[in-house]
């Protein structure tokens, strides 16, 4: 972001940058930066809080009145991730005991996903599989976790990162309908996915199996957030 600020400024366009990594803003020194110690992925801080978002924008745009730079100031509020806060989020009971638990579960939350998709008018599922393909993709990861060679298991699109993105996004979007909390905090839904759902456990188990099979680091590491 800070690099692009220099590029746009050089073209004669004034820039204001919302910084999320303060050390990087210090090093690259964009013309005007408001550092926001908010969860990564939420540069305006609070979803569905227009007043707070306007406060961020007002502080950012106020830097345009300064005669010289670089300017780096801090938003006075810090917002922590909520990854350790347990999300109350109902999951469907087991329906077909002949299926792997994650496959059964993914089928069970489909209606919740569809409602969110219809409400938002968009979905970020579809990099490797669409919603119809998520249960089968989980079936593939289940087989890998049980010992199937990852290269021959039929990973949709052949891309472990893309398919894990789709599975996780399918769940995270469905969780907006399933959660009791109206606005979950940063990484709270991520924790729910990896710690409470059968799908998250399957992704983690498949990732470990692929690593144990000697796959190159990028093939398995980026299937989940690094700290997982």
């Amino acid at each position, binding site marked *: 972001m800070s690099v*692009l600020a220099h590029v746009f400024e*050089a073209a004669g*366009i004034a820039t204001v940058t919302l910084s999320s990594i303060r050390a990087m803003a210090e090093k690259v020194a964009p013309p005007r930066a408001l550092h926001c110690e908010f969860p990564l*992925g939420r540069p*305006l801080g609070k979803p569905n809080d227009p007043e707070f978002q306007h406060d961020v924008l007002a502080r*950012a745009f106020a830097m*345009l009145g300064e005669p010289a730079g670089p300017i780096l100031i801090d938003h006075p509020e810090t917002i922590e991730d909520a990854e350790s806060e347990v999300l109350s989020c109902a999951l469907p009971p087991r329906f077909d005991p002949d299926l792997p638990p994650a496959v059964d579960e993914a089928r069970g939350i489909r209606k919740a996903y569809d409602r969110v998709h219809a409400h938002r008018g968009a979905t970020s599922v579809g990099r490797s599989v669409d919603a119809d393909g998520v249960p089968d993709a989980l079936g593939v990861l289940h087989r890998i976790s049980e010992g199937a060679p990852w290269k021959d298991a039929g990973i949709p699109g052949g891309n472990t990162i893309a398919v894990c993105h789709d599975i996780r996004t399918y769940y995270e979007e469905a969780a*907006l309908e399933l959660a009791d909390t109206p606005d979950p905090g940063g990484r709270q839904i991520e924790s729910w996915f990896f710690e409470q759902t059968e799908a998250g456990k399957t992704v983690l188990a498949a990732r470990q199996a692929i690593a144990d099979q000697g796959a190159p680091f990028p093939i398995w590491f980026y299937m989940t957030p690094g700290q997982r």
Partner: protein
Amino acid sequence: MRAHSSTLPAPTFDDPAFVTGVDLSTATVAIVTSAALHTPDDDAFSAGDTGYRTIPSDRRDLVLGHWSPNFDRSGLSLDLNVVYPIDRLTELADQGVIGAVAPRHFSFAGNQPDDVSTIRLDSGPAAAAEARHDGVDVVLLTPV
């Protein structure tokens, strides 16, 4: 993730530009985001994509194309404006705080090669030229 990102190599800029004399109340404002957002009908971002996509100002049906699993994605699903504050800019224009919302906005993928040479020397300047063509005076940059 913040701690790791803080250690990454960073380019430096000699004699950087600094635009002065901006009147926000008459300025046309565009968003540049590194969230790799794009419209569903546009090309998806590939892993390591150094290009950019333009987003028409009236579109809200945006897809997250970023390949990193290491940031919260639920905020975007809850409220597009927490990453891409297009409705907030529209409100500021209605209030006369800014002059206008630009007709198009620009989206890059934040997970770039360490030397960031392509966005610095090629795709970044190309996007800036398009913004200039659109009459953009001010850009708000939002990361993920």
